[in-house]
C-alpha cells in the first residue's frame, strides 16, 4: 500500500513538473525570461485593467493583445503606442476597435522594454528580448 502511494506521488510530481515547464515558450533565454517576469508585474499595474490577465481584451471596447500578426508587423510601433497612447480605428484579429488608449508617458524605456518582452513572448510568438535600445530607437521614429 505504502509503496503504491509513494510511486503514485512520484508519478504525479513528474507529470506536474512536465506540465509546468511546457506552459510557456520554454525556449526563452534567461535574459528574455527575466525581462518577461518584470514585464508581467508592470503589465498588471498598467495594462491588465483593460486588456485582461490573458491579454484577452474586453468585448469590442479594448482589443486583445493576442494578434500575433499585428504584434510582429507593428513591432517598431508598439513602444509608441504604450508611450503616446492610441487614437482612431485599428483592426485586431479581424475586428475593428475604436477607443482612445491613454498615453503612459511616465514609463521609461526599460519599463516599456519589460512590458513589450512580456506581451510579445507570452501573447505573441516572439522568442527574443525587446531591448531598451530597440525601444529607444522605436520612440525616435514614432509616426
Amino acid at each position, binding site marked *: *500500500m505504502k509503496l503504491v502511494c509513494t510511486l503514485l506521488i512520484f508519478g504525479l510530481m513528474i507529470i506536474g513538473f512536465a506540465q509546468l515547464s511546457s506552459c510557456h515558450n520554454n525556449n526563452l533565454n534567461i535574459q528574455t525570461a527575466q525581462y518577461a517576469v518584470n514585464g508581467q508585474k508592470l503589465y498588471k499595474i498598467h495594462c*491588465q*485593467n*483593460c486588456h485582461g490577465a490573458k491579454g484577452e481584451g*474586453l*468585448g*469590442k*471596447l*479594448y482589443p486583445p493583445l493576442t494578434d500575433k500578426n499585428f504584434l510582429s508587423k507593428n513591432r517598431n510601433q508598439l513602444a509608441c503606442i504604450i508611450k503616446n497612447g492610441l487614437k482612431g480605428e485599428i483592426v485586431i484579429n479581424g475586428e475593428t476597435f475604436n477607443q482612445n488608449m*491613454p498615453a503612459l508617458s511616465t514609463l521609461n524605456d526599460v519599463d516599456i522594454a519589460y512590458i513589450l518582452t512580456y506581451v510579445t513572448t507570452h501573447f505573441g510568438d516572439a522568442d527574443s528580448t525587446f531591448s531598451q535600445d530597440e525601444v529607444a530607437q522605436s520612440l525616435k521614429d514614432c509616426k
Partner: protein
Amino acid sequence: MIKNILAVATVSLAFLACQPNSKKLPIIGDREVVEKVVDGKTVIDTIYPAIPNFEFLNQDSVLISDKNFENKIYVANFFFTHCPSICPTMQRNLLKAYEKFKGNSGVAFLSHSIDFKHDQPHVLKSYASKLGVDNDQWQFVTGSKADIYGISDKYLVFTKEDENVAGGYDHSGYLVLIDHEKHIRGVYDGTSEEETEKLLSDIDILLAEYK
C-alpha cells in the same frame, strides 16, 4: 483505512449538502429602531435603510425609475466610460454576472455613470454594446450630478469629482446587491475575482428567497 476515508467523506458531504439551505444574506447598513403605537400598544420596530425612489436617463434616452426594478433583485455600480483605472476590471467582472443570469427576468443590472458631462445616452449606448450587452437587463444611466452622487451614498459607494486622479473622477468599485424591498444585501469588490465569484453565488442565495 478505507473505512476511515469513507467516514470523513460522508461527514464532509453532509456538511456541504447542508450549507446552502442554512444561508441567508444579511441586510447591510445602520438600522434604526423606532417605537410605534399599533392598536393602542407601543411596539418596537426595526427599519433598515433602503434605496430611495429614483429616475435616470438610460442608454436608449428613456427615463427609467425604481419601478423598472420592481420584483427583481439587481446589482448596482458606479463607473464612467473613459475611466482608465478600476472600471474596466469591475465591468469585466459584472459582465460575468450578466452572462450567467442573462434571460433571468428576476435579475437586473444598473450601472450609473458618474461623468455627467461626457457620458450622454449615446455614449453609454455605444459603450454597452461594445461591452457585449444586447438586452435591457443591464441598464446604463446618467443623471444630474446631485442625483447620481446623492444616490451613490445610499448604495454606500464613494464617488467624487477630483481632477487629481486619473480620468477626473474618484470612486470605489463596489458591486452592490439589492433585494425586492430595496435593501442592500451584499457589497462586493468589483475588482476582485474572488469577490465576484461570491456575488454570483450570493445572487443564487437571494433568488431562492423569492421562489
